[in-house]
């Protein structure tokens, strides 16, 4: 059975086939952001029943139809780097990252569904170029007060295999 790293979003019935298991030591930074099934971990968006528009994070409201017409959907794990930058200064709170501060990439990942997602990048800044293929990774961003590892998402360049 798949490991579960997320629960349902608030006020939104997550329709994916998965089992909710409370796991103390690893927690998503926000419930409902991503989920793991037999094929691996995915970000969870919402797809409109009426117009096929995709939203992220999952949310019942379709901003194109202006009605609550979306249903949860696992998003593609791969996308294309639409643009990128490097965060060179430490963001103000509530940012939580390593101390001392370590610069990191931030990019827009264009998914084939027709959505660009802002994401932290897991890459050497010099390796980044617009148009390169990227893939999702879910990993720890920091530890919270109770010692839980807080999980967020990043995208990294797809490596040749």
């Amino acid at each position, binding site marked *: 059975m798949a490991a579960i790293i997320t629960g349902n979003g608030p006020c939104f019935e997550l329709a994916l086939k998965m089992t909710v298991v409370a796991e103390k030591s690893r927690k998503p*930074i926000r419930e409902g952001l991503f989920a793991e099934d037999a094929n691996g971990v995915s970000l969870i968006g919402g797809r409109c029943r009426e117009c096929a528009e995709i939203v992220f994070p999952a949310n019942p409201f379709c901003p194109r139809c202006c009605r609550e017409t979306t249903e949860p959907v696992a998003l593609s794990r791969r996308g294309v780097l*639409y643009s990128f*930058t490097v965060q060179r200064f430490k963001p*103000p709170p*509530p940012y939580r990252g390593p101390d001392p501060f370590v610069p990191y990439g931030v990019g*827009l990942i264009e998914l084939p569904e027709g959505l660009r997602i802002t994401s932290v990048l897991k890459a050497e800044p010099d390796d980044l170029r617009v148009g390169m293929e990227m893939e999702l990774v879910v990993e720890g961003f920091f530890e919270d007060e109770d010692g839980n590892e807080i999980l967020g998402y990043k995208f990294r360049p797809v490596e040749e295999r």
Partner: protein
Amino acid sequence: MRDVYVIGVGLHPFGRFGDKDVIEIGREAVVAALEDSGVAWKDVESAYCGTVFAGPMAGNKVLARVGLTGLPIMNLENACASGGSALRLAFQDVASGFCDIALAFGFEKMPRGFIAGNPNDWFATMGMAVNPQYFALNARRHMADYGTTEDHLVRVSVKNHRNGALNPYAMYRKVMSYEEIANSTMVNDPLRLLMLCAPNEGGAAVVVASREAAKRYTTRLIRLASVVLKSPLYGTAEVPYIAVSSQVEAPSVTRTASEAAYEAAGIGPGDLDLVELQDTDSAAEIIYSEELGLCGRGEGARLLDDGATEIGGRLPVNPSGGLLSKGEPLGASALGQVAEVVWQLRGEAGARQVSDARVGLTHVYGALGNCAVSILQC
């Protein structure tokens, strides 16, 4: 609708002023605009105040120090478009015949450092939602799409600082060399510190009047041909955002607002003699030049290459020095642009005067996609 004229403008310098009270900053701008117009305060019939950080009822507090005359006072908060929103309402009061003389004013004393967006805690906690990131993402994509280079970004900043050195109201009144800018600290690649505008302090005020009223105060009639505020259409990427559709391609709000302003004024981009636009960063000047229709899509950097946007060029952009040299006091910045255009149209811009300036445009754009555009004509 009646024609509307700007009969007075006033600024409190933009910069940092220690513990000087923000209400006093606003008062000085209002008094300067009243003096410039020659209008007695009691003859002003309505007032619109734009400010984000000055606290509740800030416009009323400023005007209590000018005089309690009973006029309607409205306090607007529309992020970077706050001053433009105030102008739109003052414009409409006069255009509609509700009153003959109205005041738009704005002022700010902003927290130091970059503004931290915070759309949702988890997103900021992960290290996103920082404004210059979005500016940088726009810049990088523009470079990839159209061949805009880091050299262009440096040169926008060189130009605007050169202009700003001639502007007594600017925060940075110092020419910055190409090398200083090109070697300044990298903030969000490709944007360096001296390619980004600084939030700061300042005030600005504009007195508008009907034609009949304006003629009582001046013979130099400067028409406020249109003022437009727009919010974005769905499908555009507005700061801050977590994700944006690439299925729906909507025109940017700068494009929709400027098109509406051109139409309302009966003036096209080809008629413009100068433009004051939201150069939050160097790339923004290039991108907004395109969205304002000053050139075709992807041709913003070519305007710069051609020298068109210099004070002596075909279409000077940010002759005041722009936000890059003035800094950005949110509530005041749009009205500061209007003051610059008015001085230019009057021929009072001194060393940064654009020759034969007869038509100018102002543009601000801010959080969640509020955009205000105005067109002035003499």
